[in-house]
């Protein structure tokens, strides 16, 4: 096996993994804190990515495009919490009901994006995306470093927010005991809006990075949603660190599978990792066994 090819695939996998880690951390934050299985997280990703592509094609300043993408992601997340999840939880709120409602929204978003932006690949071509040969037969674009840097910075910032700030500590408390939060006079509904805003915001940079690297299509949300769920599970429920690590792991697995198989099997690799964990370690990497 060609060592340079392995290195190339490994680097590509890390880049994809950084994107998955950001998205998965958002999903895990929302699921861990509010117990909402936010299947429409993939739709957030799709929307944010396409907003950035639109802004880019319209000739906006990139910073403005990033801002617009983040804003749309946050608004969509909050909208889901406000208009879909909360009304459902008011009357019944079974997992099934929440899942179907969110899944319905994902389908609507996917098809609307397909109708408006056209089907097929959409990407932005920046100077950052141009690959140069850094080692013999190993190509790397600057966007690689951007992806790794953005993922690390955002993850550190998120961890700091959750452990250092008042609101962050309250969020973690909400994850452990919603009744306690109410007893201390904090508004659990405002905290859950905050969670959705934060978790959704994390999807925006990930989507922008994907637009700059492999490109987007209208169905990308399904894939990202599957990866986020798989990463949350492989990482262990309730562990942000686990979700992020698992996100990187899945990205690398997807890439390395190309050594032996064609690209269409990339998704199968993540599925096999997920199924392996279901079989042999259902609590995930960092999970603890919960009492029933």
């Amino acid at each position, binding site marked *: 096996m060609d060592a340079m090819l392995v290195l190339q695939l490994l680097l590509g996998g890390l880049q994809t993994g950084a994107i998955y880690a950001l998205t998965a951390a958002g999903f895990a934050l929302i699921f861990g804190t509010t117990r909402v*299985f936010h299947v429409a997280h993939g739709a957030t990703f799709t929307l944010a990515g396409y907003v950035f592509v639109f802004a880019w094609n319209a000739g906006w300043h990139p910073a403005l495009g990033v801002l617009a993408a983040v804003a749309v992601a946050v608004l969509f997340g909050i909208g889901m919490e406000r208009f*879909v999840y909360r*009304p*459902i939880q008011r*009357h*019944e709120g079974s*997992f*099934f*009901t*929440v*899942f*179907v*409602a*969110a*899944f*319905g*929204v*994902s*389908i*609507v978003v*996917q*098809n*609307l994006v*397909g*109708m408006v932006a056209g089907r097929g690949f959409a990407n932005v071509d920046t100077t950052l995306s141009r690959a140069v040969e850094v080692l013999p037969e190993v190509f790397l674009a600057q966007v690689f470093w951007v992806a790794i840097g953005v993922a690390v910075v955002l993850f550190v910032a998120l961890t700091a927010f959750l452990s250092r700030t008042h609101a962050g500590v309250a969020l973690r408390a909400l994850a452990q005991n919603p009744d306690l939060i109410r007893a201390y006079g904090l508004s659990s509904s405002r905290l859950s809006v905050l969670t959705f805003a934060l978790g959704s915001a994390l999807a925006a940079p990930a989507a922008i990075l994907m637009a700059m690297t492999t490109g987007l299509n209208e169905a990308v949300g*399904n*894939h990202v*949603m*599957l990866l986020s*769920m*798989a990463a949350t*599970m492989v990482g262990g*429920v309730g562990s942000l660190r686990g979700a992020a690590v698992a996100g990187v792991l899945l990205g690398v697995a997807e890439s390395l599978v190309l050594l032996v198989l064609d690209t*269409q*099997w990339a*998704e*199968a690799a*993540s*599925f096999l990792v*997920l*199924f392996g964990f*279901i*079989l042999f370690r*259902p609590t995930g990497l960092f999970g603890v066994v919960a009492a*029933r």
Partner: protein
Amino acid sequence: MTAYLASLATLAAIFAILAVTLNFMVGYAGIFSVAHAVFFGLGAYAGAQVALHLVPDALAACAVAALIAGGLSLCLALPALRVRGEYFVAASLGLQMMALTLFSEAKGLTGGLGGLIGIPPPRLFGFAVGALPLSLAALALILLAIAAMARGSFGRTLQSIRDAESAAEALGKNVAVAKALAVAFACAGAGVAGALFALHMQFVNVESFTLEQSVLVMAMVIVGGTGTLLGPVVGAVLLLSLPAGLAFLPFIPPTEVGAVQQIIYGLAMTLLMIFRPAGLVGDLSRGRSEA
């Protein structure tokens, strides 16, 4: 026109089989899967291969399809049912996406993207039969089986697991076995629907077994009402006539009809969950568990 209506009715019966079997998993056993089209596909390919290479007998095709779809579902369900319900859904979504790759790549068995063509029309013990009476009979048999199970101890076991899994276990019920049986039965039913589909269309390819198809079947169950016996049948008929209805709307460009359909399914799912989670037929005040 009669031929068109007969074909539509056959499809409605086939999709009704898919919907009532998925509903058996979701509504009675509380097991949620978005991979029903995978087992539909397995049945279709199995049935087509039997008809192409062994005998063009509908009974044989359906039996083999049921065995393969039900058997494979068991292999997947037994490990996946050990984890929380959320993850079973995640696993089924992964399965749905991976199966599509498998179907397109296993060219020897599925014909790849081109599919399998020239499947002989259904025969029963050597006599030619229409696909419509065949599908209606299969639907009726499956409905009877579900009604019988729902009233008997198996149905009670599944419903008790759906409502309070730990309490069902505390009464001596082997939850894993009960769930696996429910999955195997539902997926075997989807396999039968697949075989009938292959015999009716005389052609199958991977496009009929996508995530969109799984979503469509799920929407049928939800629109009709989970946990009711006939709700999913109503849902199937309603949603299958939707494309015909949309064709009469002149302002939708033909290339976008598929997308518009999907948007309508999606919206219907979301709005029903917010405003009427029991579906159109199901009535919460009367009881979800009553068939």
